[in-house]
């Protein structure tokens, strides 16, 4: 049985990042996009904690807590915007919201 090393964590993190990114770029529902963003942020958290464990430096873990806090705030603001948007447009499909152009 191989021990779990930093590389494994990094691979998991990369996988999460990939899934999250593809989710953001491809899914139409904004709720799902927000969830994908959460995946990306958690990929970052895993990175931070992996390196903190590897190098015995606790700063990475503190940062991870900051990122979690940030993700919560972001989710709150993002969902708030989404509700406001839904009230106006009655849709949560990202490809139907295309006013921000020339």
């Amino acid at each position, binding site marked *: 049985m191989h021990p779990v090393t930093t590389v494994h964590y990094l691979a998991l993190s990369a996988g999460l990042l990939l899934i999250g*990114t593809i989710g*953001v*770029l*491809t899914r139409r529902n904004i709720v799902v*996009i927000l969830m994908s963003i959460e995946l990306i942020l958690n990929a970052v958290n895993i990175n931070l904690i992996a390196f903190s464990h590897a190098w015995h430096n606790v700063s990475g873990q503190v940062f991870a807590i900051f990122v979690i806090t940030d993700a919560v705030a972001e989710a709150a603001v993002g969902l708030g915007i989404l509700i406001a948007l839904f009230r106006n447009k009655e849709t949560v499909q*990202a*490809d139907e*919201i*295309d*006013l*921000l*152009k*020339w």
Partner: protein
Amino acid sequence: MNFLDLIWLIPLFPLAGAVLMLLTGKWLDPQPPSDVAVAPGVEPGGAGAPLANSLAHHHPGALQNLIRIICPGMVLVSFVFSAGAVWQLAQLPKRVYEVRQFTWIAAMPFHMANGHLATFQVNWGFLLDPLSSVMLLVVTGVGFLIHVYATGYMAHDNGFYRFFGYLNLFVFFMLMLVLANNYTLLFVGWEGVGLCSYLLIGFYFHKKSAADAGKKAFIVNRVGDTGFVLGMLLMLSVLGTVRFTDVNAALRSGQFPVEAGYGVMTAMALLMFFGATGKSAQVPLYVWLPDAMEGPTPVSALIHAATMVTAGVYMVARSSALFQLAPVACAWVAGIGAFTAIFAATIALVQNDIKRVLAYSTVSQLGYMFLALGVGAYWVAIFHLFTHAFFKALLFLGSGSVIHAMGGEQDMRYMGALRKKIPVTHWTMWVGSVAIAGIPGLAGFFSKDEILWQAFSSPKGSMALWTVGLVTAAMTAFYMWRLMNMTFYGQSRVKPEVAAHVHESPAVMTWPLIALAAGSVLGGWLGVPKLWTVFGEGFRAFPRWLEPMFALSGPESEHPASTEWSLMILSVAVAAGGISLAYYLYSKRPDIPDRILARFKPLHTVLYNKWYVDEIYDFLFVNGLCKGGGSAMGEFDRKVVDGGVNGAGWLTRASATLSMWWDTWIVDGAVRFTSFSVKLLSYPACLIESGRVQTYALFVVVGLLTFLGYYIAR
């Protein structure tokens, strides 16, 4: 009492009377209700027409007597002061008294004809010299008598106070005219008497003919005044002054501030004379005077016979030094005077209105005066003015008395045989007629004969002028005695309803007639012919009195005394001939005039219609120049002025259209073309901006991966 120092008071008395009358007259002399005053069909006020006017009668209040005393009284006081001043003037060694009251027009600089700067200042000043003293005494003396007469004549008239107010105002302006010491102040009086003349001619202003006559007089006079003003301005620009003494001194010495030749003097003199033709009713501006007879008869006597119309004669005599320098102008004066004399006399021959005959007679006699002025016999002109004032005022007042007696009838065809009914009027008018006809011993003879003699013998005179004068004298005698015969002698043609009322005028009217008749007899004895050596120098007081004014220049005539005697006898003979002919035709054989009339119908028609001068003037000036010019100006207005405005409007609109086209297609076009080309060029860039957030995110990721790949691969 030093009357010379009080000379400024002389015009103020009548002015005070006028102001008092015009301000308080309504209260002094209450008017009857106005519906009576202008009752239709009633001859309004009607030249002292008590009969036709009986409806409009009102009984004068006690206060009206105050007017009767104040107004003639003011003129009488003026006369007394004038007489005193003239008496004291005669005592002075130099017989010129000039006094400056105050500065009227303050000094101001102006450029004279040669460009030099001069100062123009006019003082309110009076000049009493032999010339103005004669005028002064005539105006106040005859004026007083006419005022007295008018208190009787106008007694039954409405507007009694208004009449006397105007009359006193007239005397004031006339006194300003004759006492002024410069042309500008003279012009004030000149215009003032014109105004009063207008007011008094149009006294019965609710009668259209009277109102029209007033306007005509005013307008015709303005035409002449233009000449006067231009002459005055020319004088100012050449001589730099309008004060009589300065002007005369400059002209006599020949030292002008500005180099001025003979032509300038002629122009100046002719312009002045043109002014005189307006005021003194000479051809071509005489037309207003006959119409002026619409005014009450005392007005005709005072203004249009004795005083105002002689203002032109006075003005030319006052400018004698100027006329001496302009022989051509003198020839014009003499020619116009002679022509006017005979022209007006021909019209007077056939008129039937008693006042109209006298009006044309006045024009004719004024022509005589200008004839005398033109041949350089200035004192004779003034002498004729003096005698004429007596007998013409007398004749007018006499005719007024006749009209009064006839209840407003002025047509001589409805008179006749009035001699017994109105004896005083008859005898005084008889005296006046003899005087104007030129029978020796009465005033008219002396002055008229002197004019004829001067026209013959003066260096500027000629046989032609004398002949015209002589023929006019014959006509004068004829038309005056035609008037006398038609009015007083022969068969009565009085309308029966009038005949019952014929009555002699009251004493207040007959006494002035008697006084004027006395003047008509005696006035001439101040200037008996030189030939009549039987009489002493005292009988030539008039020429000697005026001698310093005119310096009776020119060589003594070299004609023998026999020539003068024969001319004198000839003129008396034609006068006597005219009188006898008139007597024969109109008293003895009244059928003959009708036959002559039938024979020479066209000539009579022309004369009766006054040579159609009024019609010609109407055609040429009133309709031609004024109305025609008016419509021409209207056309000009419509076509040229309006056309210019409309054209400008059209042009603006056209240019605006053009400008709009330019704006739309060129300016806006450039802007829109710019924006269009920018849009066109930016179109590819627009394609990648879809507005979809995910697309943008994809770009970010692709870009990131690209850079990442680039750095890894390197």
